[in-house]
Protein backbone atom coordinates (compact mmCIF):
# COMPACT_ATOMS: atom_id res chain seq x y z
CA UNK A 1 0.00 0.00 0.00
CA UNK A 2 1.29 3.44 -0.86
CA UNK A 3 -0.13 6.63 0.50
CA UNK A 4 1.07 10.17 -0.07
CA UNK A 5 0.00 12.71 2.51
CA UNK A 6 0.96 16.19 1.41
CA UNK A 7 0.60 19.59 3.04
CA UNK A 8 0.93 22.61 0.76
CA UNK A 9 1.21 26.01 2.45
CA UNK A 10 2.01 29.57 1.49
CA UNK A 11 0.25 32.91 1.23
CA UNK A 12 -2.95 33.65 -0.67
CA UNK A 13 -2.23 34.22 -4.36
CA UNK A 14 0.70 31.81 -4.65
CA UNK A 15 -1.47 29.12 -6.17
CA UNK A 16 -1.23 26.97 -3.06
CA UNK A 17 -4.65 25.40 -3.41
CA UNK A 18 -3.94 24.82 -7.11
CA UNK A 19 -0.83 22.72 -6.36
CA UNK A 20 -3.05 20.54 -4.20
CA UNK A 21 -5.84 20.36 -6.77
CA UNK A 22 -3.42 19.31 -9.50
CA UNK A 23 -2.01 16.57 -7.27
CA UNK A 24 -5.48 15.32 -6.39
CA UNK A 25 -6.69 15.55 -9.97
CA UNK A 26 -3.66 13.64 -11.27
CA UNK A 27 -4.10 10.99 -8.56
CA UNK A 28 -7.76 10.57 -9.53
CA UNK A 29 -6.75 10.11 -13.18
CA UNK A 30 -4.52 7.24 -12.04
CA UNK A 31 -7.60 5.61 -10.54
CA UNK A 32 -6.46 6.14 -6.97
CA UNK A 33 -8.38 7.45 -3.98
CA UNK A 34 -7.77 11.14 -3.36
CA UNK A 35 -8.88 13.89 -1.00
CA UNK A 36 -8.18 17.61 -1.12
CA UNK A 37 -9.02 19.66 1.93
CA UNK A 38 -8.45 23.42 2.06
CA UNK A 39 -8.12 25.50 5.18
CA UNK A 40 -11.05 27.89 5.14
CA UNK A 41 -12.11 30.73 7.32
CA UNK A 42 -10.86 34.13 8.42
CA UNK A 43 -7.21 33.16 7.95
CA UNK A 44 -7.72 33.07 4.16
CA UNK A 45 -8.10 36.81 3.76
CA UNK A 46 -4.73 38.32 2.92
CA UNK A 47 -3.09 35.71 5.08
CA UNK A 48 -1.94 32.15 4.76
CA UNK A 49 -3.40 29.48 2.53
CA UNK A 50 -2.92 25.77 2.92
CA UNK A 51 -4.41 22.48 1.86
CA UNK A 52 -4.06 18.81 2.66
CA UNK A 53 -3.90 16.24 -0.12
CA UNK A 54 -4.01 12.46 0.29
CA UNK A 55 -3.41 10.09 -2.61
CA UNK A 56 -3.92 6.50 -1.58
CA UNK A 57 -4.42 2.98 -2.87
CA UNK A 58 -6.80 2.27 0.01
CA UNK A 59 -9.94 3.96 1.29
CA UNK A 60 -9.07 7.33 2.84
CA UNK A 61 -10.26 7.88 6.40
CA UNK A 62 -9.40 11.25 7.91
CA UNK A 63 -8.66 13.75 5.13
CA UNK A 64 -6.61 15.82 7.57
CA UNK A 65 -2.87 15.31 7.27
CA UNK A 66 -0.97 15.04 10.55
CA UNK A 67 1.96 12.82 9.54
CA UNK A 68 2.90 14.24 6.16
CA UNK A 69 5.00 12.34 3.65
CA UNK A 70 5.74 15.74 2.12
CA UNK A 71 5.40 19.32 3.38
CA UNK A 72 5.66 22.10 0.83
CA UNK A 73 6.39 25.51 2.40
CA UNK A 74 6.15 28.37 -0.06
CA UNK A 75 6.89 31.10 2.50
CA UNK A 76 8.43 31.50 5.95
CA UNK A 77 5.22 31.48 8.07
CA UNK A 78 4.32 28.16 6.39
CA UNK A 79 7.66 26.62 7.35
CA UNK A 80 7.21 27.88 10.92
CA UNK A 81 3.74 26.38 11.13
CA UNK A 82 4.07 23.10 9.25
CA UNK A 83 7.69 21.98 9.69
CA UNK A 84 6.67 19.74 12.58
CA UNK A 85 3.99 18.01 10.46
CA UNK A 86 6.48 16.13 8.28
CA UNK A 87 6.85 12.51 9.37
CA UNK A 88 10.40 11.33 10.09
CA UNK A 89 12.03 10.48 6.78
CA UNK A 90 9.44 12.54 4.91
CA UNK A 91 10.11 15.44 2.60
CA UNK A 92 10.30 19.12 3.49
CA UNK A 93 10.38 21.27 0.35
CA UNK A 94 11.10 24.95 0.74
CA UNK A 95 10.74 27.92 -1.54
CA UNK A 96 14.24 29.27 -0.85
CA UNK A 97 13.44 32.43 -2.85
CA UNK A 98 11.30 33.54 0.11
CA UNK A 99 12.53 31.49 3.08
CA UNK A 100 15.73 32.81 4.62
CA UNK A 101 16.20 30.17 7.32
CA UNK A 102 17.10 26.51 7.28
CA UNK A 103 14.65 24.06 8.84
CA UNK A 104 15.27 22.96 12.42
CA UNK A 105 14.39 19.33 11.65
CA UNK A 106 17.22 16.85 11.10
CA UNK A 107 15.12 13.71 10.72
CA UNK A 108 13.52 14.65 7.40
CA UNK A 109 14.76 15.00 3.84
CA UNK A 110 15.07 18.65 2.92
CA UNK A 111 15.32 20.37 -0.42
CA UNK A 112 15.44 24.14 -0.84
CA UNK A 113 14.25 25.20 -4.29
CA UNK A 114 14.32 28.81 -5.53
CA UNK A 115 10.92 28.38 -7.16
CA UNK A 116 10.19 32.11 -7.47
CA UNK A 117 13.48 32.66 -9.31
CA UNK A 118 12.95 29.59 -11.51
CA UNK A 119 9.42 30.80 -12.32
CA UNK A 120 10.70 34.24 -13.31
CA UNK A 121 13.13 32.52 -15.68
CA UNK A 122 10.09 30.86 -17.29
CA UNK A 123 8.57 34.29 -17.80
CA UNK A 124 6.11 34.64 -14.91
CA UNK A 125 6.27 34.51 -11.14
CA UNK A 126 2.75 33.11 -11.27
CA UNK A 127 3.94 29.63 -12.26
CA UNK A 128 6.13 29.29 -9.15
CA UNK A 129 3.55 26.85 -7.80
CA UNK A 130 3.90 24.59 -10.83
CA UNK A 131 7.71 24.71 -10.55
CA UNK A 132 7.26 23.45 -6.99
CA UNK A 133 4.84 20.78 -8.17
CA UNK A 134 7.49 19.58 -10.65
CA UNK A 135 10.09 19.35 -7.90
CA UNK A 136 7.65 17.55 -5.62
CA UNK A 137 6.84 14.95 -8.28
CA UNK A 138 10.50 14.37 -9.13
CA UNK A 139 11.26 13.68 -5.46
CA UNK A 140 8.18 11.85 -4.21
CA UNK A 141 6.71 10.25 -7.36
CA UNK A 142 3.36 11.06 -5.73
CA UNK A 143 1.81 10.90 -9.19
CA UNK A 144 3.27 10.25 -12.63
CA UNK A 145 4.46 13.14 -14.75
CA UNK A 146 1.99 12.30 -17.53
CA UNK A 147 -0.88 12.40 -15.03
CA UNK A 148 0.26 15.80 -13.81
CA UNK A 149 0.39 17.09 -17.38
CA UNK A 150 -3.09 15.73 -18.07
CA UNK A 151 -4.34 17.34 -14.86
CA UNK A 152 -2.87 20.70 -15.85
CA UNK A 153 -4.57 20.43 -19.25
CA UNK A 154 -7.90 19.56 -17.61
CA UNK A 155 -7.77 22.28 -14.98
CA UNK A 156 -6.76 25.01 -17.44
CA UNK A 157 -9.54 24.00 -19.81
CA UNK A 158 -10.12 25.46 -23.27
CA UNK A 159 -10.36 29.08 -22.06
CA UNK A 160 -6.83 29.09 -20.60
CA UNK A 161 -5.26 26.84 -23.19
CA UNK A 162 -2.76 29.59 -24.06
CA UNK A 163 -1.23 29.17 -20.59
CA UNK A 164 -0.51 25.48 -21.09
CA UNK A 165 2.96 26.01 -22.55
CA UNK A 166 4.34 28.10 -19.73
CA UNK A 167 2.87 25.75 -17.14
CA UNK A 168 4.39 22.67 -18.72
CA UNK A 169 7.73 24.48 -18.96
CA UNK A 170 7.44 25.36 -15.27
CA UNK A 171 6.76 21.71 -14.42
CA UNK A 172 9.85 20.69 -16.39
CA UNK A 173 11.94 23.37 -14.70
CA UNK A 174 11.00 22.06 -11.26
CA UNK A 175 11.81 18.49 -12.23
CA UNK A 176 15.07 19.53 -13.91
CA UNK A 177 16.19 21.40 -10.79
CA UNK A 178 15.83 18.22 -8.75
CA UNK A 179 17.75 16.17 -11.32
CA UNK A 180 20.54 18.76 -11.31
CA UNK A 181 20.98 18.88 -7.53
CA UNK A 182 20.71 15.12 -7.18
CA UNK A 183 23.43 14.37 -9.76
Amino acid at each position, binding site marked *: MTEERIIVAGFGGQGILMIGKLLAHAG*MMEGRNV*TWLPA*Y*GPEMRGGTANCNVIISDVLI*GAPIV*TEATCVIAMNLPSLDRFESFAQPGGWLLLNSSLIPRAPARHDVQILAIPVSDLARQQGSLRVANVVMLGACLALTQAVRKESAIAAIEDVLGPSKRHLLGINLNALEAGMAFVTKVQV
Partner: protein
Amino acid sequence: MARKLMKGNEAIAAAAINAGCRYFFGYPITPQNEIPEYMSRELPKVGGAYVQAESEVAAINMVYGAAGAGARVLTSSSSPGISLMQEGISYIAGAELPCVLVNIMRAGPGLGGVQPAQADYFQATKGGGHGDYRVLVLAPANLQEAVDLTQLAFDLADKYRNPVMVLADGMIGQLMEPVEFSPYRPAAGLPPKDWATTGTVHSGGRQRVINSLYLYPDQLENHVRAIFRKYAEMERTEVRYELYNCDQADVVIVAYGTTSRIARSAIEKCRRLGLRVGLLRPITLYPFPLAAFDLVVERTKAFLVVEMSMGQMLDDVKIAVAGRRPISFYGRTGGIVPTSEEIVKQVQELLGGRGA
Protein backbone atom coordinates in the same frame (compact mmCIF):
# COMPACT_ATOMS: atom_id res chain seq x y z
CA MET B 1 -19.53 7.97 -16.41
CA ALA B 2 -16.10 9.31 -15.54
CA ARG B 3 -15.10 10.24 -12.05
CA LYS B 4 -15.04 13.97 -11.44
CA LEU B 5 -13.12 15.83 -8.73
CA MET B 6 -15.63 18.05 -6.93
CA LYS B 7 -16.05 19.98 -3.72
CA GLY B 8 -18.64 18.49 -1.37
CA ASN B 9 -20.92 21.50 -1.67
CA GLU B 10 -20.79 21.39 -5.47
CA ALA B 11 -21.35 17.64 -5.51
CA ILE B 12 -24.48 18.01 -3.36
CA ALA B 13 -25.80 20.78 -5.61
CA ALA B 14 -25.07 18.77 -8.77
CA ALA B 15 -26.77 15.72 -7.24
CA ALA B 16 -29.89 17.77 -6.49
CA ILE B 17 -30.15 18.92 -10.09
CA ASN B 18 -29.48 15.36 -11.27
CA ALA B 19 -32.41 14.23 -9.11
CA GLY B 20 -34.74 16.68 -10.82
CA CYS B 21 -34.55 19.58 -8.40
CA ARG B 22 -35.37 22.74 -10.36
CA TYR B 23 -35.88 25.29 -7.57
CA PHE B 24 -33.51 26.64 -4.97
CA PHE B 25 -34.15 29.33 -2.39
CA GLY B 26 -31.50 30.32 0.08
CA TYR B 27 -29.35 32.91 1.72
CA PRO B 28 -25.53 32.91 1.84
CA ILE B 29 -23.59 31.60 4.81
CA THR B 30 -20.16 29.97 5.20
CA PRO B 31 -19.25 27.09 4.81
CA GLN B 32 -21.98 26.09 2.31
CA ASN B 33 -21.78 28.97 -0.17
CA GLU B 34 -20.72 26.81 -3.11
CA ILE B 35 -24.21 25.23 -3.06
CA PRO B 36 -26.13 28.45 -3.86
CA GLU B 37 -23.27 29.55 -6.12
CA TYR B 38 -23.58 26.35 -8.14
CA MET B 39 -27.37 26.48 -8.20
CA SER B 40 -27.41 30.12 -9.31
CA ARG B 41 -25.16 29.22 -12.22
CA GLU B 42 -26.62 25.85 -13.22
CA LEU B 43 -30.37 25.97 -12.49
CA PRO B 44 -31.20 28.51 -15.24
CA LYS B 45 -29.47 26.21 -17.74
CA VAL B 46 -31.98 23.43 -17.04
CA GLY B 47 -35.05 25.64 -16.94
CA GLY B 48 -35.04 26.01 -13.17
CA ALA B 49 -35.13 29.03 -10.92
CA TYR B 50 -32.72 30.26 -8.27
CA VAL B 51 -33.72 32.95 -5.80
CA GLN B 52 -31.44 34.51 -3.22
CA ALA B 53 -34.00 35.41 -0.61
CA GLU B 54 -33.79 38.38 1.76
CA SER B 55 -33.34 36.02 4.70
CA GLU B 56 -33.47 32.37 5.68
CA VAL B 57 -37.00 32.91 7.00
CA ALA B 58 -38.10 34.05 3.55
CA ALA B 59 -36.13 31.27 1.84
CA ILE B 60 -37.80 28.44 3.76
CA ASN B 61 -41.24 29.91 3.08
CA MET B 62 -40.41 30.06 -0.63
CA VAL B 63 -39.51 26.38 -0.31
CA TYR B 64 -42.92 25.84 1.33
CA GLY B 65 -44.58 27.47 -1.67
CA ALA B 66 -42.65 25.55 -4.31
CA ALA B 67 -43.17 22.27 -2.43
CA GLY B 68 -46.90 23.00 -2.24
CA ALA B 69 -46.92 23.33 -6.02
CA GLY B 70 -45.40 19.85 -6.24
CA ALA B 71 -41.90 20.87 -7.37
CA ARG B 72 -38.66 19.23 -6.29
CA VAL B 73 -37.11 22.01 -4.24
CA LEU B 74 -33.94 22.48 -2.21
CA THR B 75 -32.61 24.91 0.30
CA SER B 76 -29.24 24.83 1.99
CA SER B 77 -27.69 26.72 4.83
CA SER B 78 -25.39 26.32 7.78
CA SER B 79 -26.27 26.09 11.46
CA PRO B 80 -27.42 29.65 12.35
CA GLY B 81 -29.34 29.86 9.08
CA ILE B 82 -31.00 26.49 9.68
CA SER B 83 -32.09 27.75 13.10
CA LEU B 84 -33.86 30.65 11.39
CA MET B 85 -35.68 28.19 9.12
CA GLN B 86 -37.15 26.05 11.90
CA GLU B 87 -40.58 27.69 11.90
CA GLY B 88 -40.95 27.02 8.17
CA ILE B 89 -39.69 23.45 8.47
CA SER B 90 -42.33 22.78 11.12
CA TYR B 91 -45.02 24.21 8.81
CA ILE B 92 -43.81 22.09 5.88
CA ALA B 93 -43.85 18.95 8.03
CA GLY B 94 -47.28 19.93 9.36
CA ALA B 95 -48.62 20.49 5.86
CA GLU B 96 -47.05 17.19 4.76
CA LEU B 97 -44.98 18.54 1.91
CA PRO B 98 -41.77 17.11 0.45
CA CYS B 99 -38.59 19.18 0.36
CA VAL B 100 -34.87 18.66 0.82
CA LEU B 101 -32.80 20.67 3.28
CA VAL B 102 -29.01 20.68 3.47
CA ASN B 103 -27.25 21.74 6.67
CA ILE B 104 -23.48 22.10 6.32
CA MET B 105 -22.89 22.47 10.04
CA ARG B 106 -20.56 25.02 11.60
CA ALA B 107 -19.75 25.58 15.23
CA GLY B 108 -22.26 27.20 17.57
CA PRO B 109 -24.04 28.28 19.65
CA GLY B 110 -25.07 31.67 18.33
CA LEU B 111 -23.11 32.87 15.34
CA GLY B 112 -20.34 30.65 16.67
CA GLY B 113 -17.64 30.12 14.07
CA VAL B 114 -17.30 28.88 10.51
CA GLN B 115 -15.29 25.72 11.20
CA PRO B 116 -16.83 22.21 11.11
CA ALA B 117 -19.10 20.93 13.88
CA GLN B 118 -21.78 18.34 14.55
CA ALA B 119 -23.62 20.22 17.25
CA ASP B 120 -26.94 20.46 15.37
CA TYR B 121 -27.72 16.78 15.91
CA PHE B 122 -30.48 17.45 18.45
CA GLN B 123 -32.02 20.13 16.26
CA ALA B 124 -31.93 17.95 13.16
CA THR B 125 -33.12 14.66 14.64
CA LYS B 126 -35.61 15.69 17.30
CA GLY B 127 -37.76 17.99 15.20
CA GLY B 128 -35.99 21.30 15.55
CA GLY B 129 -39.04 23.51 15.31
CA HIS B 130 -42.24 23.45 17.37
CA GLY B 131 -44.76 20.66 17.50
CA ASP B 132 -44.82 16.91 17.07
CA TYR B 133 -42.81 16.14 13.96
CA ARG B 134 -39.56 14.69 12.69
CA VAL B 135 -37.31 15.28 9.73
CA LEU B 136 -35.64 12.30 8.08
CA VAL B 137 -31.91 12.94 8.45
CA LEU B 138 -29.17 11.50 6.20
CA ALA B 139 -25.51 11.89 7.19
CA PRO B 140 -22.93 11.28 4.43
CA ALA B 141 -19.31 10.47 5.34
CA ASN B 142 -17.78 10.90 1.89
CA LEU B 143 -18.65 12.78 -1.26
CA GLN B 144 -19.95 9.85 -3.30
CA GLU B 145 -22.29 9.12 -0.44
CA ALA B 146 -23.24 12.81 -0.30
CA VAL B 147 -24.26 12.56 -3.97
CA ASP B 148 -26.16 9.31 -3.51
CA LEU B 149 -27.94 10.43 -0.33
CA THR B 150 -28.89 13.82 -1.80
CA GLN B 151 -30.57 12.05 -4.70
CA LEU B 152 -32.20 9.58 -2.33
CA ALA B 153 -33.40 12.50 -0.19
CA PHE B 154 -35.67 13.73 -2.99
CA ASP B 155 -37.24 10.29 -3.37
CA LEU B 156 -37.74 9.87 0.37
CA ALA B 157 -39.24 13.36 0.64
CA ASP B 158 -41.75 12.52 -2.11
CA LYS B 159 -42.43 9.07 -0.67
CA TYR B 160 -43.26 10.35 2.81
CA ARG B 161 -44.35 13.92 1.97
CA ASN B 162 -41.98 15.13 4.64
CA PRO B 163 -38.83 17.28 4.78
CA VAL B 164 -35.60 15.31 4.43
CA MET B 165 -32.33 16.79 5.64
CA VAL B 166 -28.83 16.05 4.40
CA LEU B 167 -26.71 16.76 7.47
CA ALA B 168 -23.00 17.27 6.87
CA ASP B 169 -20.36 19.64 8.20
CA GLY B 170 -17.95 22.25 6.93
CA MET B 171 -15.27 19.68 6.26
CA ILE B 172 -17.46 17.62 3.93
CA GLY B 173 -18.68 20.83 2.31
CA GLN B 174 -15.15 22.04 1.58
CA LEU B 175 -13.49 18.69 0.86
CA MET B 176 -12.79 17.58 -2.71
CA GLU B 177 -13.08 13.90 -3.69
CA PRO B 178 -13.84 12.07 -6.92
CA VAL B 179 -17.55 11.51 -7.49
CA GLU B 180 -19.50 9.71 -10.15
CA PHE B 181 -22.99 10.57 -11.36
CA SER B 182 -25.07 7.74 -12.75
CA PRO B 183 -28.18 8.52 -14.75
CA TYR B 184 -30.84 9.16 -12.13
CA ARG B 185 -34.21 7.44 -12.09
CA PRO B 186 -36.77 8.23 -9.37
CA ALA B 187 -37.56 5.31 -7.08
CA ALA B 188 -40.32 3.05 -8.32
CA GLY B 189 -43.76 3.54 -6.86
CA LEU B 190 -43.53 7.13 -5.71
CA PRO B 191 -47.06 8.38 -5.07
CA PRO B 192 -48.57 10.86 -7.55
CA LYS B 193 -48.62 14.45 -6.30
CA ASP B 194 -52.40 14.61 -6.38
CA TRP B 195 -52.34 17.12 -3.54
CA ALA B 196 -50.27 19.80 -5.29
CA THR B 197 -51.87 23.21 -5.62
CA THR B 198 -51.35 23.72 -9.33
CA GLY B 199 -54.75 25.22 -10.12
CA THR B 200 -58.17 23.65 -10.49
CA VAL B 201 -57.47 23.17 -14.20
CA HIS B 202 -55.19 20.33 -13.14
CA SER B 203 -57.36 18.95 -10.36
CA GLY B 204 -60.57 18.40 -12.28
CA GLY B 205 -62.13 21.51 -10.80
CA ARG B 206 -61.61 20.36 -7.22
CA GLN B 207 -60.04 22.75 -4.77
CA ARG B 208 -56.83 21.57 -3.08
CA VAL B 209 -55.73 23.14 0.18
CA ILE B 210 -52.30 23.12 1.80
CA ASN B 211 -52.48 23.97 5.44
CA SER B 212 -51.03 23.19 8.83
CA LEU B 213 -53.75 24.87 10.91
CA TYR B 214 -56.22 22.59 12.70
CA LEU B 215 -58.21 24.49 15.30
CA TYR B 216 -60.17 21.47 16.53
CA PRO B 217 -57.98 19.37 18.80
CA ASP B 218 -59.54 16.07 17.76
CA GLN B 219 -58.77 16.84 14.11
CA LEU B 220 -55.24 17.90 14.94
CA GLU B 221 -54.63 14.81 17.02
CA ASN B 222 -55.78 12.65 14.12
CA HIS B 223 -53.53 14.59 11.79
CA VAL B 224 -50.49 14.21 14.04
CA ARG B 225 -51.20 10.51 14.53
CA ALA B 226 -51.34 10.10 10.76
CA ILE B 227 -47.98 11.86 10.42
CA PHE B 228 -46.53 9.59 13.08
CA ARG B 229 -47.70 6.51 11.22
CA LYS B 230 -45.38 7.71 8.47
CA TYR B 231 -42.55 8.04 10.97
CA ALA B 232 -43.23 4.51 12.20
CA GLU B 233 -42.98 3.35 8.59
CA MET B 234 -39.67 5.25 8.21
CA GLU B 235 -38.36 3.56 11.34
CA ARG B 236 -39.26 0.17 9.86
CA THR B 237 -37.93 0.68 6.35
CA GLU B 238 -35.49 3.58 6.07
CA VAL B 239 -32.83 2.81 8.70
CA ARG B 240 -29.34 2.88 7.19
CA TYR B 241 -25.99 2.25 8.86
CA GLU B 242 -22.58 0.71 8.29
CA LEU B 243 -20.73 -1.77 10.46
CA TYR B 244 -16.97 -1.89 9.98
CA ASN B 245 -14.60 -4.32 11.67
CA CYS B 246 -17.12 -5.05 14.44
CA ASP B 247 -16.87 -8.85 14.43
CA GLN B 248 -13.98 -9.14 16.88
CA ALA B 249 -14.01 -5.63 18.29
CA ASP B 250 -13.40 -5.04 21.98
CA VAL B 251 -14.43 -1.42 21.51
CA VAL B 252 -17.00 -0.20 19.00
CA ILE B 253 -16.71 3.46 18.05
CA VAL B 254 -20.01 5.13 17.17
CA ALA B 255 -19.56 8.11 14.86
CA TYR B 256 -21.22 9.64 11.81
CA GLY B 257 -20.10 11.86 8.95
CA THR B 258 -16.66 13.44 9.24
CA THR B 259 -15.88 11.92 12.63
CA SER B 260 -16.59 8.43 11.31
CA ARG B 261 -13.82 8.89 8.73
CA ILE B 262 -11.40 9.97 11.41
CA ALA B 263 -12.52 7.00 13.47
CA ARG B 264 -11.65 4.68 10.56
CA SER B 265 -8.12 6.09 10.53
CA ALA B 266 -7.96 5.59 14.30
CA ILE B 267 -9.16 2.00 13.92
CA GLU B 268 -6.33 1.32 11.46
CA LYS B 269 -3.80 2.79 13.91
CA CYS B 270 -5.31 0.69 16.72
CA ARG B 271 -5.01 -2.44 14.59
CA ARG B 272 -1.28 -1.80 14.25
CA LEU B 273 -1.12 -1.53 18.05
CA GLY B 274 -2.90 -4.86 18.42
CA LEU B 275 -6.18 -3.32 19.57
CA ARG B 276 -9.46 -4.63 18.15
CA VAL B 277 -11.74 -1.72 17.40
CA GLY B 278 -14.81 -1.47 15.18
CA LEU B 279 -17.07 1.24 13.87
CA LEU B 280 -20.83 1.57 13.95
CA ARG B 281 -21.70 4.41 11.61
CA PRO B 282 -25.29 5.65 11.53
CA ILE B 283 -26.17 6.88 8.03
CA THR B 284 -29.74 7.77 8.93
CA LEU B 285 -29.62 9.81 12.14
CA TYR B 286 -33.40 9.85 12.22
CA PRO B 287 -34.52 7.11 12.11
CA PHE B 288 -31.60 6.12 14.34
CA PRO B 289 -30.26 2.58 13.77
CA LEU B 290 -31.24 1.25 17.21
CA ALA B 291 -31.31 -2.40 16.11
CA ALA B 292 -27.76 -2.23 14.74
CA PHE B 293 -26.51 -2.06 18.33
CA ASP B 294 -28.16 -5.40 19.08
CA LEU B 295 -25.92 -6.97 16.42
CA VAL B 296 -22.68 -5.89 18.12
CA VAL B 297 -23.49 -5.46 21.81
CA GLU B 298 -22.83 -9.10 22.78
CA ARG B 299 -19.35 -9.19 21.29
CA THR B 300 -18.04 -5.82 22.38
CA LYS B 301 -16.80 -4.71 25.77
CA ALA B 302 -17.55 -1.01 25.45
CA PHE B 303 -18.78 1.72 23.15
CA LEU B 304 -16.96 4.97 22.42
CA VAL B 305 -19.07 7.76 20.95
CA VAL B 306 -17.09 10.40 19.05
CA GLU B 307 -18.71 13.64 17.89
CA MET B 308 -17.79 17.19 17.06
CA SER B 309 -20.09 18.34 19.85
CA MET B 310 -20.36 18.06 23.61
CA GLY B 311 -22.38 14.85 23.20
CA GLN B 312 -25.69 14.80 21.34
CA MET B 313 -25.92 11.52 19.41
CA LEU B 314 -24.61 10.12 22.70
CA ASP B 315 -28.19 10.22 24.04
CA ASP B 316 -29.46 7.99 21.22
CA VAL B 317 -26.58 5.58 21.77
CA LYS B 318 -27.55 5.36 25.44
CA ILE B 319 -31.11 4.50 24.41
CA ALA B 320 -29.83 1.87 21.95
CA VAL B 321 -27.33 0.24 24.31
CA ALA B 322 -29.85 0.39 27.17
CA GLY B 323 -27.27 -0.10 29.91
CA ARG B 324 -25.93 -3.36 28.49
CA ARG B 325 -22.38 -2.02 28.07
CA PRO B 326 -20.44 1.01 29.30
CA ILE B 327 -20.42 4.01 26.96
CA SER B 328 -17.62 6.57 26.82
CA PHE B 329 -17.70 9.84 25.01
CA TYR B 330 -15.05 11.90 23.27
CA GLY B 331 -16.00 15.21 21.70
CA ARG B 332 -14.32 18.30 20.34
CA THR B 333 -16.31 21.43 19.75
CA GLY B 334 -16.03 25.05 18.69
CA GLY B 335 -14.85 24.05 15.22
CA ILE B 336 -12.02 21.78 16.32
CA VAL B 337 -11.86 18.48 14.43
CA PRO B 338 -10.61 15.56 16.54
CA THR B 339 -7.51 13.77 15.29
CA SER B 340 -7.21 10.02 14.86
CA GLU B 341 -4.40 10.08 17.44
CA GLU B 342 -6.77 11.57 20.03
CA ILE B 343 -9.28 8.80 19.35
CA VAL B 344 -6.57 6.11 19.65
CA LYS B 345 -5.66 7.54 23.05
CA GLN B 346 -9.29 7.29 24.16
CA VAL B 347 -9.42 3.66 23.08
CA GLN B 348 -6.18 2.90 24.92
CA GLU B 349 -7.56 4.44 28.10
CA LEU B 350 -10.75 2.42 27.73
CA LEU B 351 -8.76 -0.78 27.40
CA GLY B 352 -6.69 -0.01 30.47
CA GLY B 353 -3.64 1.41 28.74
CA ARG B 354 -3.11 -1.56 26.40
CA GLY B 355 -1.13 -0.78 23.25
CA ALA B 356 0.25 2.43 24.77
